[in-house]
């Protein structure tokens, strides 16, 4: 099914801005009526600086209203719109058209892998959040708090800079070859969250979290495939953090 031409720009068009002709191939699936997922191609026009999300929104708003996906913030902070775009996990709102296609080219869009597809590009996120909850993702310090803040040095605070930056978009976990084949692996996102607390000098439950990481659903499942690191839209050096957790577990238990 191919649709008519239309323009997908969020920015006002000035005559001088060249428009790209694109084919957008979307993997669609509605369990209410489809047995199997199928590809549909839409012809659209877009500017090089448009986000892939602008293009998909355009398809939804003017060509195919039933197309379903999650989105909210439009600038890579809410973590709603992880998709498999041209073969890699990315946030549709943080991927510019010019980075994935030339004029006349094709952009393919599929749901992220390893989680059940509910409709089109929207997947069941519950297992992902279950893994998140499994690492006790909350600050634990049961000694009485001081009247003001707990003191922490700049360097100590900096240790959490990467891991606390995670927006739980699942780009990483659903790019991990181990997670694809086996969902019992907690996955990189959960490990990044564990790192956030393990390396927080104020937190007191380090041993418990290291214990969780030490189980066969934890860090030892990671085979350093680096897909997670490549996929992370927040540029978190995930594999490095996982390796740090591995070492922390090793030295912590030794």
């Amino acid at each position, binding site marked *: 099914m191919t649709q008519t031409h239309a323009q997908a720009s969020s920015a006002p068009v000035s005559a001088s801005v060249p428009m790209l002709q694109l084919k957008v191939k979307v993997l669609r699936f509605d369990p209410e009526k489809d047995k199997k997922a199928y590809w549909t191609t839409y012809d659209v026009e877009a500017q090089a600086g448009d986000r892939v999300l602008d293009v998909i929104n355009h398809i939804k708003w003017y060509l195919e209203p039933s197309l379903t996906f999650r989105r909210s913030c439009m600038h890579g902070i809410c973590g709603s719109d992880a998709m498999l775009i041209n073969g890699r996990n990315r946030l549709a709102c943080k991927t510019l058209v010019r980075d994935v296609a030339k004029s006349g080219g094709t952009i393919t869009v599929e749901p992220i892998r390893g989680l059940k597809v509910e409709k089109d590009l929207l997947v069941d996120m519950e297992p992902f959040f279950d893994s998140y909850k499994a*690492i006790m993702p909350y600050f634990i310090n049961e000694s009485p708090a001081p009247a003001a803040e707990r003191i922490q040095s700049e360097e100590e605070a900096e240790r959490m800079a990467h891991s606390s930056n995670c927006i739980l978009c699942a780009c990483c976990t659903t790019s991990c070859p*181990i997670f694809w*084949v086996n969902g019992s692996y907690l996955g990189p996102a959960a490990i990044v969250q564990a790192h956030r607390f393990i390396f927080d000098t104020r937190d007191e439950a380090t041993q*418990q979290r290291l*214990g*969780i990481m030490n189980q066969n659903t934890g860090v*030892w499942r990671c085979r350093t495939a680096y897909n997670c690191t490549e996929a992370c839209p927040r540029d978190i050096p995930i594999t490095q953090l996982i390796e740090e957790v591995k070492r922390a577990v*090793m030295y912590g*238990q030794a």
Partner: protein
Amino acid sequence: MIRARTFTDARQQAHSNAELNWWIFMRISGLILVFLILGHIYMTFIQVSESDATFDAVVNKLANPAWKFYDWLILALSLLHGANGARYSIEDYVRSRPNRAWVKGVFYTVIALLFAFGTVGLFSI
């Protein structure tokens, strides 16, 4: 799967260091195997031709207890290392619990038999 919500849950679930120990073992055995295996390949395969791997040649070489031990170490380490490596794969790809149990059972038995067979072979010379 672990689903710890509290301190106690987590403590209960986190008692075993098995995975950690295997992880360390994979690295140490790997390090040793680099020397053993590359050496073995070099000696039996590049230096000496396969045609020399006659019955007599093998028997002669293994008359030396040092070589006996060398070969046995390869046998033991690589079987263990390989078996644990294969266990990783089985745990990843065989997802149903009952299937996993019997696949692992059969696999470990084969490895154990091979190990016994190899050991008996080596030392019966």
